[in-house]
């Protein structure tokens, strides 16, 4: 039996095409992926991301525990700050990527990928059980079933969400959040975070209040061009930003340094899980790197296709994601390639149905590059 979010009936009402996504019944699209994608880039997109997992980590040793468990420097965050993080195995391989929200000095909300929720929770529990004395008084709880999470993303996102809340959203900077009320009395975390490359917010509210908040956002946003967006547009939007997705760019066998996530691996803090192997990889330089590429001849790169040298004779790596970019109208892909062929500008080819097709490593993100 597939799991449903609190917004299931809303998706059906809006004509969403429901699919099985890691055990969750969610809309892959409503009107069409391209239409939804462009609405998000041009005005605003509304996403049900309630399938994500939410853990509470609380207690006097919470910050120290998270510093030990994940790669980024959690204890350096201020209350009201969110931080992108990687959870690693002792080998340095990636258990998951996640966002940690500091709600108080000793209280954190940890948001993980839906399909990894059980795996991640067991991983955290294992770390705690093995280090009980070090992190005494720590409370680790899985509250995934209690949250509805709705993302409103795009240049109009702030104006739309502002209609639902008295919290002054312009005061919330990127990767910061506030706890306030929406639609009158519904308690919510209003976070300036997201997965689209656009400005926008992720709203966490109680599960049962999801439909009220969703409908209010549709009502407030539709006149400004907001459209509900399915998983399809979520994927093309994040691909255009080269944001990694677990199961594509990230896996138990990949490490954060080759994935281009070295910026969230902080060796200047104390010991953390995976530190030893990651230090060695950093010293030697990763053997392969995650790059963006553009196909120059006809063809769309897809996950699993091989990346070859420009002459097609030698294998260089493999595609982890690929699509026709709705914003650029170009075929783009994300791939792991040998480090000596990873520089932007390198000519390569992608093997599409047995034929090498001309491609080039390009700078990323593919869109929204800072001038």
């Amino acid at each position, binding site marked *: 039996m597939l799991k449903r979010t609190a917004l299931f009936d809303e998706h059906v009402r809006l004509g969403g095409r429901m699919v099985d996504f890691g055990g969750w019944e969610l809309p*892959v699209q409503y009107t069409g*992926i*391209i239409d939804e994608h462009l609405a998000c880039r041009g005005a605003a997109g509304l996403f049900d991301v309630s399938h994500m997992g939410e853990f509470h980590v609380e207690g006097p040793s919470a910050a120290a525990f998270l510093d030990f468990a994940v790669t980024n420097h959690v204890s350096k965050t201020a209350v009201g700050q969110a931080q992108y993080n990687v959870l690693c195995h002792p080998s340095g391989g990636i258990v998951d990527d996640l966002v940690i929200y500091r709600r108080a000095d000793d209280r954190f909300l940890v948001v993980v990928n839906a399909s990894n929720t059980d795996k991640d929770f067991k991983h955290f529990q294992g770390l705690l059980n093995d280090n009980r004395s070090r992190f005494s008084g720590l409370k680790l709880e899985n509250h995934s079933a209690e949250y509805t999470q709705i993302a409103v993303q795009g240049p109009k996102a702030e104006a739309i969400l502002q209609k639902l809340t008295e919290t002054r959203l312009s005061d919330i900077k990127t990767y910061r959040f506030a706890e306030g009320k929406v639609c009158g009395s519904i308690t919510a975390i209003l976070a300036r975070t997201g997965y689209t490359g656009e400005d926008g917010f992720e709203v966490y509210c109680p599960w049962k209040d999801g439909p009220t908040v969703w409908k209010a956002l549709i009502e407030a946003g539709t006149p400004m061009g907001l459209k509900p967006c399915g998983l*399809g547009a979520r994927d093309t939007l994040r691909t255009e930003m080269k944001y990694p997705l677990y199961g594509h760019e990230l896996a138990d066998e990949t490490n954060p340094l080759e994935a281009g996530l070295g910026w969230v691996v902080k060796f200047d803090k104390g010991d953390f899980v995976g530190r030893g192997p990651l230090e060695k990889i950093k010293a030697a330089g990763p053997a392969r790197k995650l790059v963006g590429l553009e196909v120059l001849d006809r063809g*769309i790169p897809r996950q699993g296709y091989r990346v070859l040298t420009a002459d097609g004779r030698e294998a260089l790596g493999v595609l982890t994601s690929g699509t*026709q970019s*709705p914003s650029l109208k170009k075929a783009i892909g994300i791939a792991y390639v040998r480090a000596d062929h990873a520089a932007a500008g390198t000519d390569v080819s992608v093997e599409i*149905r047995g034929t090498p097709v001309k491609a080039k490593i390009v700078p990323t993100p593919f869109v929204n590059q800072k001038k």
Partner: protein
Amino acid sequence: MRFPKEYKYTQDHEWARVEGKTVTVGITDHAQSSLGDVVFLELPKVGRTLKKGEAFGVVESVKAVSDLYSPVDGKVIEVHSDLVDDPGTINKEPHDGGWLVKIELTSADGAAHLMDAAAYEKLVASL
């Protein structure tokens, strides 16, 4: 969802319009709707001989890659090459403007093995 009565259909969701020895082929309304926005098309060359069920091309949407299968034994006599530059037409007009190839029948069996509209509609309803 449309199921034009005068067309024949395959289990792979292609339609075939049979006029004498010429069979025009496209993908069905159901197929285009399942695929979503079509963004890429690869079609065969004129003159290629095809067996019934043989892959003759590829259609890709933003999300998915799908092979195109010949509904009949025959030879490709015309290719809708303009469509390659505007594959979105397949979403808008799957049964007419979105036609893909014309095939000249070579086997005696012709198109007799294909489903009629009622049978195909039943198949789609069962999915």
